[in-house]
């Protein structure tokens, strides 16, 4: 069959680039927010908070573009699945950006008090979170379900680390009540990373749908509807 590159194909490419740019910005925000914490650099933290405006702006721009493509092209099959997926993952990316802002806010608060030694696990969680976001975006752009699945499996590790970190913080608080405020702030930070992991997982579930037309999220609901049939 004869292939031709359409204007539409170019627009889809352009949309991919915009989403990658947005993803890159959120990934960078995660990295900066963690450095703001480990280097006790509140200026950097403020940079992340201010930078979120750009991510939000890009989200609106992408939303408009997707709706325009739906109206003008009335896409079918993989194009339709690509746009439906894009529409669902962009809010996830925006939320990831928000979490980086939350981490930065906690960093500013923590930087005003003496340092806690228990920060060690935070950079590891941050690195994992970044890897998951990057992996999810690669999977999306390449339409590659295998990469998506490997990111989904990383989420278990993320959950384990968060539980472990929470126990460490708890022992600190029991030992020395003066650490409670800081330990609570750190609990939040761990939770934000865990949420970023969840959001990357959401993206990957959408990617599997996009690539294979197969819905993998909410396995319990799906099992119920299978049983009913």
């Amino acid at each position, binding site marked *: *069959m*004869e*292939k*031709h590159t*359409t204007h*539409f*194909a170019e627009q889809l490419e352009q949309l991919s680039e915009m989403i990658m740019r947005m993803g890159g910005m959120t990934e960078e925000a995660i990295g900066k927010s963690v450095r703001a914490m480990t280097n006790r650099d509140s200026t950097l933290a403020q940079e992340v908070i201010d930078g979120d405006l750009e991510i939000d702006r890009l989200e609106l721009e992408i939303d408009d573009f997707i709706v325009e493509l739906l109206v003008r092209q*009335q*896409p*079918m*099959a*993989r*194009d*339709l*699945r690509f746009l439906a997926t894009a529409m669902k993952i962009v809010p996830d990316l925006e939320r990831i950006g928000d979490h980086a802002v939350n981490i930065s806010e906690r960093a500013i608060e923590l930087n005003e008090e003496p340092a806690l030694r228990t920060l060690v696990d935070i950079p590891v969680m941050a690195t994992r979170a970044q890897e998951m976001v990057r992996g999810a975006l690669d999977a999306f752009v390449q339409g590659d379900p295998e990469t998506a699945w490997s990111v989904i499996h990383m989420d278990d590790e993320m959950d384990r680390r968060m539980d472990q970190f929470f126990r460490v913080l708890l022992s600190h608080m029991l030992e020395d009540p003066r650490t409670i405020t800081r330990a609570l702030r750190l609990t939040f930070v761990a939770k934000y990373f865990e949420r970023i992991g969840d959001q990357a997982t959401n993206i990957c579930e959408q990617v599997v749908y996009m690539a*294979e*037309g197969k819905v993998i999220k909410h396995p319990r609901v799906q099992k119920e509807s299978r049983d009913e049939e």
Partner: protein
Amino acid sequence: MAESSLKPMSSEVIEPPVTTGSAPRQDETGSGTESDDARGYSEEVEFTAADDPAVNPKFESPLLSVKNLGLWYGNNQALHDITLDVPEKKITAFIGPSGCGKSTLLRCFNRLNDLVDGVRIEGDILFEDRSIFDVRTDVNALRKRIGMVFQKSNPFPKSIYENIAYGPRIHGITSKRKLDDIVERSLRGAALWDEVKDRLNESALGMSGGQQQRLCIARAIAIEPEVILLDEPCSALDPIATSKIENLMMDLKSHYTLVIVTHNMQQASRISDFTAFLYLGRLIEYQETEKLFISPMKKQTEDYITGRFG
């Protein structure tokens, strides 16, 4: 071509000799004689969906069942080994690029291709489990049960009333009261009654294009067929008239089995329950409509519906 030999059939849904527009017929049969290379499709299709249930669903008691159908116009093979079931009281759509054989296939169902010189058919089509090609099949009776609506609306140059009454009358109904009933019921069935009830005796040729097409559908309904074949029924209509016809088709499927050929993929996706994609005279994929347009199984289907070739 066939028009010259086309006698006024018992079924009025066949276009009458007077107003026969040759355009729709030549559209498909003409392209069958055109070389595929000239259209830019040089690559052979590697696959026919005949036996793979994943891309060709089987129904428990299909109303129409196409079995390994092959069709030649002279030396040109227009259909290759088509096997496909048409379920009852559903809308089944045939899509594909010009010359893919979708109209040719549609015309087989009420044996309109018999009228084309040099046509040779292999395989079979079963209508309620009986071969439509059987020597004992009364073609006129078949066309009464399987009606057709064409791309170009073709009302008779008579009054609106006479357009509808013509078919029942040649089927032997003479009672004025009965004919009145049929005319009203058919026009209501085609969602046209309210628009024309005050001018039933005016010429049908004075109606708008959309009204004329609905009149043709009313005419088809008047003789109470079981199947209505529609060959690009909306291609000459504006979006409002199109929408009326589409709504009408959705209503009609509670009583009739509809098979529609359309170039308009959005239309197929809006109204049909099942969609078959044909390419170079072969059935590539046949699916529930939603499945075909959201996640088709075959790459050729995907390439066609996303506009990546042609």
